C-alpha cells in the first residue's frame, strides 16, 4: 500500500487534500511515527482516522437557527443569574423579591442597583426577543435547577459559593458572563450573514452585552457602593479591570475559573479560513482567507503606544465548543444544556 500514491490520486479530484488533513501539517508529524511504530495490520485503521479528520463531517457549520438557539441558551444563563440574585425565582417574568435578594440589593448604591436591574431587564428581554425570532424552533426553557452559579456542578458549594449574598462575588460572576456573551455573539455573527435582519438584531444584542460588561467593570473598579465612574482608572487586571479587556485581563475576575473567558478558542473544522479565535491579548488583525493579518503592535511601533492598547482595541470572538465549556462551569453535573 502506497499511502502517498493514494493521496496523489485524491489530489487530482481534490486539490486541497493536503490542506484538509491539517493546515499546520501536523498530520505528517504523526505519520512519521507510523512507519516506525505501526504494524501493517493497524495501518488501515489509522488511515481511517486520518481521513475522518480530513473529510469527516462530525460537525457542520451552524445554521441561523442553531446560532440563535445557542445565543438563547446563553441568554437564559445570564437572565437566570440576575433573576436569582436580584428578583424572582429565576424564571423569565417572575418578579417577586425574597429576603435574600433584598439583602444583596442593600449592598449596592441606589444607582448601581438600578444599573444591575437594567441589565437584568435587558437579559430577560433578550430571551424574549430570541424566543420570538425563533418561534416554534426555539428550545424549551431550561429548568432553573439545571444551573449552579457557584460553579459547584449542583453542590451549590463551588468556588463562587455565596455569590448571591456577596456583592463583589456577584459582580465578578456578572462580568464573566457578560464578557463571555460578547465573545460568543462575535463568534456567531459570520453564520448569520445570510439573514440580514437577524444579523443586525444579533449585533444589536452583542453591543448591549458589551455595554453591560463595561458598566460592571466600572462597578468593580469603584466598588458596589460607589457611583462614580471616575473613581479610579483601572489597572487592567482582574481585580481592578479597565472598562475594556486589556491583554488577557490577568485571567479575569477569578483566574482559576475565568481564565478561559479571555484565552484562545479552538476553531471547529467548519470555520472559514480567515477566522480564528485567538486569546484577548491578540495584536494581529486583518487575516483574509489564507492570508495572514498584520501584527499591529509591530507595524505601528512608531506610535509608541503601550503594548496593551493593541489588544484592547479589538475584542476577539470565541467558538461554540469553547463557549459551551465555559458555560458548563455554571450548570449541574449531567446537564445537557451546553
Amino acid at each position: 500500500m502506497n499511502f502517498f500514491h493514494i493521496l496523489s490520486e485524491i489530489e487530482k479530484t481534490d486539490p486541497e487534500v493536503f490542506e484538509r488533513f491539517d493546515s499546520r501539517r501536523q498530520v505528517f508529524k504523526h505519520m512519521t511515527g507510523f512507519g516506525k511504530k505501526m504494524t501493517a495490520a493497524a495501518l488501515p485503521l489509522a488511515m481511517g482516522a486520518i481521513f475522518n479528520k480530513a473529510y469527516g463531517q462530525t460537525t457542520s457549520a451552524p445554521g441561523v437557527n442553531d446560532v440563535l438557539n445557542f445565543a438563547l441558551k446563553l441568554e437564559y444563563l445570564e437572565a437566570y443569574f440576575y433573576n436569582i440574585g436580584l428578583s424572582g425565582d429565576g424564571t423569565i417574568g417572575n418578579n417577586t423579591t425574597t429576603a435574600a435578594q433584598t439583602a444583596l440589593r442593600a449592598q449596592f448604591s441606589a444607582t448601581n442597583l438600578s444599573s444591575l436591574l437594567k441589565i437584568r431587564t435587558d437579559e430577560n428581554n433578550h430571551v424574549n426577543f430570541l424566543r420570538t425570532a425563533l418561534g416554534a424552533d426555539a428550545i424549551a426553557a431550561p429548568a432553573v435547577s439545571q444551573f449552579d452559579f457557584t460553579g459547584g456542578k449542583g453542590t451549590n458549594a463551588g468556588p463562587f459559593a455565596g455569590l448571591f449574598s456577596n456583592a463583589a462575588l456577584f459582580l465578578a460572576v456578572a462580568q464573566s458572563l457578560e464578557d463571555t456573551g460578547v465573545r460568543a455573539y462575535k463568534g456567531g455573527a459570520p453564520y448569520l450573514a445570510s439573514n440580514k435582519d437577524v444579523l443586525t438584531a444579533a449585533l444589536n444584542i452583542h453591543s448591549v452585552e458589551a455595554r453591560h460588561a463595561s458598566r460592571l467593570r466600572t462597578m468593580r473598579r469603584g466598588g458596589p457602593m460607589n457611583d462614580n465612574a471616575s473613581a479610579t482608572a483601572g489597572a487592567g487586571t482582574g481585580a481592578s479591570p479597565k472598562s475594556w479587556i486589556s491583554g488577557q485581563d490577568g485571567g479575569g475576575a477569578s483566574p482559576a475559573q475565568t481564565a478561559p473567558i479571555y484565552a484562545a478558542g479552538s476553531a471547529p473544522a467548519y470555520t472559514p479560513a480567515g477566522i480564528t479565535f485567538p486569546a484577548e491579548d491578540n495584536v494581529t488583525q486583518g487575516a483574509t482567507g489564507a492570508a495572514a493579518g498584520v501584527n499591529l503592535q509591530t507595524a505601528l511601533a512608531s506610535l509608541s503606544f503601550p503594548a496593551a492598547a493593541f489588544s484592547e482595541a479589538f475584542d476577539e470572538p470565541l467558538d461554540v465548543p469553547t463557549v459551551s465549556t465555559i458555560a458548563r462551569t455554571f450548570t449541574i453535573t449531567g446537564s445537557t444544556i451546553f
Partner: protein
Amino acid sequence: MHTPSSPARMLARRSFFRVAGAGAAVSALVLAGCGKDDPEPPVPGTPTLSLGNFVATATSDPNITVLNYAYLLEQIEAAFYDKVVTTPPADLLPGELAYLTDMRDHELIHREYLKYALGTSAYDNTLATPLVFDFSTFTLTTRTGVWTAARQLEEIGVAAYNGAAKYLTSADHLNALGKIVSVEARHAALAREVLQPGSFADNVGTTGLDDAKTPAQVVALIQPFVPIAISTANLPTT
C-alpha cells in the same frame, strides 16, 4: 467571499503599512500643531467625498464601501481624542485623562487597521493632504463638553457599525467589524457613565436591542465634522 490576495498585493500591503505607521505619527503632529491662527489648507480634488462604489456593477464591492465608511468614522474619532488628549480640559477628574488616552489609542489603532485593510482602495488614497476635521460644534474646554462629545461620537460609531454590518459580503471583514464594535460599545457605556452614572444603556429599549443606523442617517450626523460634503449616492441602502 474574501478579498483576493495575490503575492504582489501582499507585498504592496506590507510596504504600505511601514509608511502608514510613520504617516500616523506625522498627522498626529500636524493636528497638534494646528492652532487657531493657522488657516486650514483647502482640500484639493473633488468637492464631495464619495466612500466607494456600491452601485451594483460587476466591479462594485460593498466591502470597500463599508470599510471606507468605517475608516472615515474612525478618522473622526481618532482626531477628536487626539485633540482632547493633546489639550485636555483643566477640570478633568483623576483617572479621566487615562480613560481618554486609552480611547485615543484604540481609535487610532482602528483607523490604521482600516487603512491597512483598504490599501489603495482607501477613499483618501489620492488626496494630497488628509482631511482636517472640524470639532467647533463641541465645547472641548470643559470635562462635561469633552465627555458629551465622546458620548456622541461613540454612540454614532456603535449605531453605524451595527447598521452597516449587513452590507458586508466578506466573513473576514464582518468578523473584524465585530471585534471593533464591541470596543466602541464599551467606550460608549463608559462615556455615558462618566457624565451620568447609571446611564450606560439608556438608549436600549424594551426589546433589549441597541441602535442601528443607516449610512445615510450616520452621514447626516457626521457631516458637521467633515470639511467637504459627503456624498451618500454610493452608500448602501438595502
